[in-house]
């Protein structure tokens, strides 16, 4: 006779072997690995941002207690306006800025580091809420079919047709410019694809013989849907969500860039880029570096999503 703990261990070992195999598949593609390493790097930096950089640097007033040092606007180093390259070592120190400073004279590198948690956190929240909402609705619609399915599809279509920018504008004018408003607006635009994706998945999954087998066994609809069908259908959603993380970061910062930002001085990639845009000729590095960061993050997440798609592809399973 076996004890409960042994039961669990056997179960775990089986799942672990499965995961190991997935990791193996994942590691085979160098591009995907690059994407993973980059995204992990950004996530770790974001998590540690407040330790790496003093968040007080971001404040435009009260910087080191004194007045705001306007004389450091858009520069590389206090003494040499543009010295970058082999001379860096000479100018290392509190007065040297690796990526220059922004319009407020804040160190751009520090600001980008402080921006990472803001952007990643918001993207994460938006994607999770959109995916949860869309997936649940899609799963229910696909599984139930009939009028409910039809109704959900029509509603989704309406939201599909809505331009996100207009929606954000409307919200901003209704509720004022705040991060929450922005989140809300973006979620409203990002959930419909998940409905379609999940609905399609569930439609094909629910026709599979194992579902019929479960029903013959007497399993109820909730069990079939949530324990089996959704678990088997969820993988493309994970792929989509990973890819969307990149997309949402771009959308979020684009909206911030366009002026939906509640505060111009908030360290956020779109905000920083907007600031750089104002000085695109005198200080091109600001928009360059903040823009590059956005690009690299969203690309990295896309690569991870691509890799996940391959790993979770059922055809690759033995």
């Amino acid at each position, binding site marked *: 006779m076996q004890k409960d703990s042994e039961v669990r261990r056997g179960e775990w070992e089986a799942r672990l072997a499965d995961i190991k195999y997935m990791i193996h598949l994942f590691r085979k593609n160098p591009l995907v690995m690059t994407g993973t390493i980059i995204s992990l790097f950004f996530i770790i930096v974001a998590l540690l941002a407040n330790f790496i950089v003093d968040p007080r640097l971001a404040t435009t007033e009260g910087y080191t207690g004194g007045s705001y040092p306007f004389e450091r606007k858009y520069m590389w180093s206090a003494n040499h306006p543009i010295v970058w390259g082999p001379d860096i070592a000479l100018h290392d120190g509190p007065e040297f800025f690796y990526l220059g400073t922004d319009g407020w004279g804040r160190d751009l590198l520090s600001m980008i580091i402080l921006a990472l948690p803001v952007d990643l956190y918001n993207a994460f929240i938006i994607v999770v809420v959109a995916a949860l909402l869309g997936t649940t609705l899609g799963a229910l619609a696909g599984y139930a079919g009939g009028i409910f399915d039809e109704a959900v599809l029509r509603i989704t279509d309406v939201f599909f047709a809505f331009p996100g920018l207009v929606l954000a504008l409307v919200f901003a004018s209704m509720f004022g410019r705040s991060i929450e408003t922005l989140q809300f607006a973006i979620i409203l635009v990002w959930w419909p694809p998940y409905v379609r994706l999940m609905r399609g998945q569930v439609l094909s999954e629910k026709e599979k013989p194992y579902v019929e*087998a479960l029903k013959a066994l007497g*399993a109820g609809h909730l069990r079939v849907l949530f324990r089996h069908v959704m678990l088997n259908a969820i993988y493309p959603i994970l792929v989509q969500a990973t890819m969307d993380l990149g997309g949402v970061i771009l959308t979020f910062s684009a909206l911030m860039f366009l002026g939906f930002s509640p505060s111009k001085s908030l360290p956020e990639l779109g905000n920083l880029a907007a600031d750089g845009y104002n000085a695109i000729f005198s200080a091109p590095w600001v928009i360059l570096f903040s823009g590059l960061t956005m690009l690299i993050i969203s690309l990295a997440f896309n690569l991870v999503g691509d890799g996940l798609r391959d790993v979770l592809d059922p055809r690759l399973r033995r």
Partner: protein
Amino acid sequence: MRSHVISTKNAVKTIDPLVVKNLKVWFPIKSGVIQKTIGHVKAVDGVSFSVKKNETLGVVGESGSGKTTLARAILRLVKPTAGEVRFDGINIPKANRQQMKTLRQKVQIIFQDPYASLDPRQTVSSLLREAMHIHGVVKSKSEATEKSLKLLRKVGLDEEHLYRFPHEFSGGQRQRIAVARALVANAEFLILDEPTSFLDVSVQASVLNLLKDLQKDLNLTYMFITHNLAVVHHMSNRVAVMYLGKIVELADKNTIYRNPKHPYTFQLMAAIPVPNPEAKKKEILLEGDVPSPINIPLGCRFHPRCKYAKEKCRKVEPNLVEKDGHFVACHSEIDFSAEMRTGESADG
């Protein structure tokens, strides 16, 4: 139609565990924006039979003849358009929740495709445990594990297989797992829908042996669906032959193989390849393809492929008529027994 319904009633009384009466399953074909029904796929089109306690009723027919749909209708996995399915006297299509709960324990099904009928993300242990949980037959996890092991041994697997995923098993082993799951509660009646058609012959042999052993040990009643006539001959006591959603002949195994009365049965027998290169096979070929169950031919549904079709066959649908337990639905009363024997007598 009337005559055989009455005759089954008389012969059956109440002892037969499964009685199916005039069962019809029509799938509507919808078209256009307003999803108007423009016709029906008559997958099962008026089927009546009964299965006796502890026997194996074989059901044979080409693919598309409605075998799987019949099985699904019996289990209420699809809603019948008309007719009755009585298990232990309870009409399954109209059974209430409580009755369904017991029925789901007693009547089980094994599906054709072992590669698709198990949830790919569940280990054997968790799928057996789930089945026990649904039927409420065990209380604790350790009891479930113990029972799972017992079941696995019963179907010829053991402990080491408990924590594996379906993809780690061969087809034969997966069918064994499916059988184990079907036996979790007190199954009495098993519908076997082509359980070995995806398996190799040597594996098929061991699964068939297992099924025979289990039937004896646990007093099971089987409905064995297949398109393989040799397998159905090996497994069954009685055989029903289906064509386009109807049973065209039903009789004792030996009767149907030696003395078929329906031309379709006869030609189906002739089409089976025999594992004997020296057999002097009669070259009786069934011409043409199976017609679509959407446009079922008028009269006898077999007449476009039948060599013996008469004028009457094109107009009037023959009823399934019983004579000494031999049910046939055919207007021409032809005796094929002589021809069957010439085919058999060839040997080396």
